[in-house]
């Protein structure tokens, strides 16, 4: 067993989930079963292999440049409403579970 109930509680906390006791028990079982399967990756020697985070790293980048400069093709000028008009305040708040017409409203953050 790699993942314990304590780990599940810790990870749920990181993920902003609560989980019921039944859900936690199921999660311990499922995560262990999946991670046991994932462990087969350790059979591969990846010592000198570069990690691949994105597909465009394999095409389209300007290899003559350094660092993030390689991805200049994907950038644009930083101008206000450069690509489209911003949403109006009304539109932006339309789907909010709770709003006062100007702001999203949430429960109190500071407890005293």
């Amino acid at each position: 067993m790699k993942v314990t109930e304590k780990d599940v509680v810790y990870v749920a906390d990181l993920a902003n989930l609560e989980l019921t006791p039944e859900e936690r028990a199921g999660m311990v079982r499922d995560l262990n079963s999946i991670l046991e399967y994932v462990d087969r990756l350790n059979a591969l020697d990846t010592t000198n292999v570069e990690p691949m985070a994105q597909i465009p790293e394999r095409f389209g980048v300007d290899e003559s440049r350094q660092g993030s400069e390689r991805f200049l093709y994907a950038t644009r000028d930083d101008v206000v409403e450069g690509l489209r008009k911003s949403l109006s305040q009304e539109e932006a708040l339309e789907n909010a579970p709770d709003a006062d017409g100007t702001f999203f409203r949430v429960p109190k953050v500071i407890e005293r």
Partner: protein
Amino acid sequence: MIQPPLTIDAVRCAIQERKTTALALMEDHYERIEKIEKEDEAIGAFLTVCRERALEAADRIDRMAAEGKPLPPLAGVPVAIKDVMSTRGVRTTAASKSLEHYIPPFDCTAVARIEAAGAVVLGKTNCDEFAMGSSNENSAFRPVRNPRALDRVPGGSSGGSAAAVSADMAVAALGSDTGGSIRQPASFCGVVGLMPTYGRVSRYGLIAFASSLDHIGPITKTVKDAARVLGVIAGRDAMDSTSADLPVPNYVAELEKSARGLKLGVAKEYFGEGLDPEVRHAVESAIDKLKSLGCEVVPVSLPHTPYAIPTYYIIATAEASSNLARYDGVRYSYRARGVRSLSEMYRRSRDESFGAEVKRRIMLGTYALSAGYYDAYYLKAQKVRSLLARDFEDAFRKVDAIITPTSPTPAFRLGEKSNDPLAMYLADIYTVTADLAGIPGISIPCGETRDKLPIGLQILGRHFDEATILRVAHAYEQAA
């Protein structure tokens, strides 16, 4: 009136020649949807229909036809959209309770493009919650039945889109593919599903699951229809910086080129343990057919294939755990009632609105990214991803396309795998590799089992070489 099964060109020509109208076709399809979905064993393909929007689109085409103007490529074509693509003013749920009442203020680029090309969007199709699943049983609203066998799953996650096309409730559909979610349901439902190259089609307005793996693509009845839709949705979009600034070929014209002389790779890694004998037989017969059409079949090796599923489920869940952090109950997603603090609101809102598989993936992804495990899981998976991509680079130096089964089995029964996450993940064993490598893949029907269940043939190609896989698919489809 023209009768189903309809193709895109047949629809456009019939409207242009005034043999029917876009409005009549739209009404026909809504009637059919209503009739099918009223039955005891309803298919459950649609979550929302958008009659007003469809009416407006149909009306525009009918006015053009009445004025004798040349019609755009998808004129009057009734289309279904997977409910992970944002539609302005039309509810978009991702089949999640979290977005049950969400009405986007903007359109997904792919949807805007097909509408600009004349398509009539009928509604939004059911899918696995946030596109996470291989059977459509993870929808928060209801599972989808396979129109070809009502006790079986349609595949997932684009199960509603594949079922809608298969049951003639739409002429074409858009789906999304992160680990096989266009191709596997297409194969289970006996239709064509195309996942384009990563970057070929803009994802602006697609509800994100795993950003380095998500693709939008067409589900259609014929290869030519898939080529038509791809031609419309492909190409650079300034709203998606991952969309590639490369010219879009005339995919339909490319279909006319002969497949003779093309080199097709066959990898033994896709014909191993777990492959259903009837699927194997159908795919081997298809390979023989392609040989008889003048293609040369070459053995290739993709040695890291057995590592694809674990690699995929670490990378996809890690990215998902980050992408789904936005569902916090503040701006547009579900909010729990009766909470006393902000942090309790976040937790309870997410707890109450996410389904079991979504929670499982968020947990797995968060675990894989957490301090102490990042190198062992996430970094390791990214390195193996490089090896998988390299496998394809090596193979494509020798061949023009690679032929595999789309799925190791035909459609399985509803409930058969829903209690075993790992068994469900293995349903994607032949499809996740293309997502990881960013290469295009298409699934086309290649026969049936004795029980009349459709079988899918998968054709994989080089980056941005959809033209070749479409050509091979078209040649096979015409000959079969």
